[in-house]
């Protein structure tokens, strides 16, 4: 590794004992103390003063959960800098280096750390954790459904699990690529030293961290019985768990918004010299476009949840028809968020998978500009299709035709993604390493998800399939079979850069086949249920659906086992794996040009970009040779003075 020669990496910088100030004493422990402490104070006060009112328990839960979120952020130090700013103080350069984790070794993973790579790894672990929870819940759902009238869970627990499985998976899939790789990879890809707003970056992670415990707390607060869509007015009458659920979503929505702003600004303003928009790696486009769409979707979620909370804790009537509200208002606001959110989930992993396809077909991405255009067209159309989730609500029958039009139009830009993939594969030198396996699986699954989506876009057919297991199978094919498998492809692709180790491909391929087969069995079982007419989210079902359900359950166990094997492969490789070279795939984008492990501030020499990263089979442009003339200046070393920040 060439990095060994660099004399002074930032990691080795000695900081004075006063660097970091208050942050020196703050970590996850103080965060938990703050969160639990403020939550307890909130509980005590609200229990004392609000319990007696009409909405007592709801108020207590809301205040307690909000106390937890704010207390955790206070304890971890998220508000230090804004408050100091308000009081007219600024962090010194040394403070910022301390915040970035200089000299703290592994402890920095447990802190409010501004280094984008640390945040990326934190996100990665959070995603694994949430997927673990969501997957466990999915197994409990499938176990309940293994027989028609099972008493494994009962209706209360079943509904609670269905809701939290849905929301946990939505939370995890929204961040599964923009969180870990949007933070770890994107800044390096565009040649930046960090994200545009490092503290905001850390804040977005810790907001996510704060959002998860209230979601799990719903189980002991009576359970959310309204599904992840929490249709009003059912959710208005749901147990106090719904308040915790709403706090989770509000916190999470703020997190996604901040992280989206950060990614967009990073890519717009911090690209290396020569990194024109034409040369941006397609994953960067995907991350930016997905984040931009998230900025559109998340405010809608917040508006909806604020109104949901006020309906529940103060008796407002936004969604309660008896006093002038409307459940359709919730459904509209929810799906104005909900459909774009699907593409917030989908676009970043698909774009990341295109990197994989290009690298392992050893060919440039086919129709790069058209594909980027297709992404933009998708997000433009996706904000106009929300009511296709409401074809059967009776909300506005006259709008079914127009929404059918926009929904079907979206299949045109989606089709471009397929064109891009098969065009890249065409006459490529297919290098069948593990990431490429997952890319092929994506291709297989996403076609099925897409075709079944076409049925649902057609109003007469949707009048049958809406609200039944067909829909469940369809969106699992697109979100699990499509987005999540693409994310696994991306994960396997970037694993050597993130962990410094090669992923064990032998175990990984075992996992691959289990997952690949498990998906087909599970969701074809669900298609079968759906054709036969089994409604979604039922704890007990008609025995005529028995065989289809047993098929789905068997497939689901195989699928989960496959993911467990994959997790084993990851952990095994993270500990015992072969040390990874800086560029194991011989790819051409910037993140492979920096050493592994990536040093703080990423680049020893500011990169100058002269071509896009897809020049496979093309003669190397001559320009970079001119660049290394510069003396490698270790950035942030003693010779840079701590200027006066503004």
């Amino acid at each position: 590794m060439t990095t060994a020669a660099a004399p002074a990496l930032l990691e080795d910088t000695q900081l004075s004992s006063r660097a970091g100030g208050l942050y020196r004493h703050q970590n996850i422990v103080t965060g938990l103390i703050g969160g639990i402490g403020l939550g307890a104070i909130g509980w005590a006060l609200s229990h004392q003063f609000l319990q007696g009112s009409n909405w007592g328990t709801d108020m207590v839960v809301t205040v307690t959960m909000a106390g937890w979120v704010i207390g955790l952020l206070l304890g971890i130090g998220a508000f230090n800098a804004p408050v100091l700013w308000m009081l007219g103080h600024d962090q010194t350069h040394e403070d910022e280096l301390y915040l970035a984790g200089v000299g703290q070794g592994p402890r920095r993973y447990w802190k409010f750390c501004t280094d984008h790579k640390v945040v990326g790894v934190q996100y990665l672990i959070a995603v694994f954790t949430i997927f673990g929870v969501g997957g466990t819940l999915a197994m409990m759902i499938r176990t309940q459904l293994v027989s028609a009238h099972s008493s494994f869970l009962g209706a209360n627990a079943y509904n609670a699990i269905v809701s939290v499985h849905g929301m946990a998976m939505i939370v995890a899939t929204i961040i599964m690529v923009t969180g870990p790789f949007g933070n770890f990879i994107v800044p390096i890809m565009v040649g930046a030293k960090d994200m545009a707003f490092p503290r905001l970056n850390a804040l977005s992670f810790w907001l996510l961290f704060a959002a998860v415990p209230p979601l799990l707390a719903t189980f002991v607060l009576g359970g959310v019985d309204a599904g992840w869509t929490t249709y009003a007015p059912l959710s208005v009458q749901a147990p106090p768990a719904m308040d915790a659920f709403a706090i989770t979503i509000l916190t999470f929505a703020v997190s996604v918004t901040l992280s989206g702003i950060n990614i967009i600004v990073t890519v717009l303003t911090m690209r290396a010299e020569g990194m024109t928009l034409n040369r941006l790696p397609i994953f960067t486009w995907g991350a930016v476009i997905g984040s931009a769409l998230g900025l559109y979707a998340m405010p809608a979620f917040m508006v909806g949840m604020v109104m949901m909370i006020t309906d529940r804790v103060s008796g407002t009537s936004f969604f309660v028809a008896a006093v002038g509200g409307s459940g359709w208002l919730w459904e509209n606001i929810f799906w104005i968020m909900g459909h774009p959110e699907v593409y917030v989930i989908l676009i970043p992993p698909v774009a990341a998978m295109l990197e994989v396809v290009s690298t392992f077909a050893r060919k440039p991405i086919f129709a790069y500009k058209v594909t980027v255009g297709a992404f933009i067209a998708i997000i433009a159309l996706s904000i106009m299709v929300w009511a296709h989730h409401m074809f059967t609500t009776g909300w506005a029958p006259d709008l079914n035709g127009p929404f059918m039009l926009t929904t079907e139009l979206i299949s045109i830009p989606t089709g471009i993604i397929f064109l891009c993939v098969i065009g890249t594969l065409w006459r490529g030198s297919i290098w069948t390493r593990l990431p490429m396996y997952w890319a092929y699986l994506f291709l297989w699954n996403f076609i099925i998800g897409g075709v079944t989506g076409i049925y649902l876009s057609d109003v007469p057919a949707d009048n049958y399939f809406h609200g039944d297991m067909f829909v469940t199978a369809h969106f699992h094919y697109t979100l699990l079979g499509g987005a999540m498998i693409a994310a696994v492809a991306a994960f396997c692709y970037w694993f050597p850069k993130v962990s410094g180790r090669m992923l064990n491909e032998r175990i990984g391929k075992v996992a691959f086949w289990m997952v690949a087969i498990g998906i087909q069995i599970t969701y074809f079982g669900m298609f079968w249920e759906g054709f036969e007419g089994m409604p979604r989210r039922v704890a007990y079902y008609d025995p005529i659906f028995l065989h289809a359900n047993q098929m789905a359950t068997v497939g689901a166990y195989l699928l989960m086992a496959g993911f467990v094997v994959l997790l084993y492969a990851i952990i095994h490789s993270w500990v015992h794996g072969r040390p990874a070279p800086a560029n194991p795939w011989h790819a051409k984008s910037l993140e492979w040009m920096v050493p592994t492990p990536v040093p703080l501030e990423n680049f020893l020499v500011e990169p100058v970009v002269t071509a896009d990263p897809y020049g496979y089979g093309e003669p190397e442009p001559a320009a970079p040779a001119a660049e290394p003339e510069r003396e490698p200046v270790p950035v942030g070393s003693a010779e840079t003075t701590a200027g006066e920040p503004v």
Partner: protein
Amino acid sequence: MSEKPGRERKPKALGIILTFVAVAIGVAVVAILFHAQTYTSPVGTQVAKSVGTVTVNGQTLQHVTLAFNTYPDASGSVDGQAIHPGGNPSWPSYGPTNQFQVPAHALVTVTMRQYDSGGSLNNPWFATVRGTVGSVARINGRLVHAVNPNNVGHTFTVRGAPGTDPGFFVNVPLPAVPGNNQSDNGQYETVIFSFVSGSQGVYGWNCEYPCGTSVAGFGGPMSAFGYMSGFLHVV
């Protein structure tokens, strides 16, 4: 140089993953099981008592009896029968249990005491006695077909789980005790009715009087299994 901290870091990173995954999954599973325990199994199943045979519409059937009550709260403060250990003692509740077991194709005679006050049904359709023998119930000694839909305490409404005997349906409105009975004065209405149980399977029953919380009165006890809902196991 960058190798050494790297080596130290990796097992730690692994530890982070494992700790988080294990803690989160553990919390989730414990919470769910706790939740499932709290809400699904109050105090066991009441097995119907056999009292011989009886002839209904020319058919000779086994005759069994069930006895249970409805209470204004679940604390057992009305007649001493504790219903829900823990949970929400202030919620109205059936008791002493919410799960009943009866033989298939038998005449089931239910004797109930209704201790709760009440009000108007969301849907007056449930004020009519349906599905019992003769479509009547004996309320305080008087045979009635229907009660005043604006003075109902609770209802006992049974139907099959999907796929079991779709024709089976019993609805008995339980008239309200006059006045506000939250003072637990022990006043009650006696309701007796008989129905012929269906074929084997799980049957769900619940109350259709909006005695719960929130917008349509179906929150709280109405939406938590075990207070105003339960199962009738036909074996």
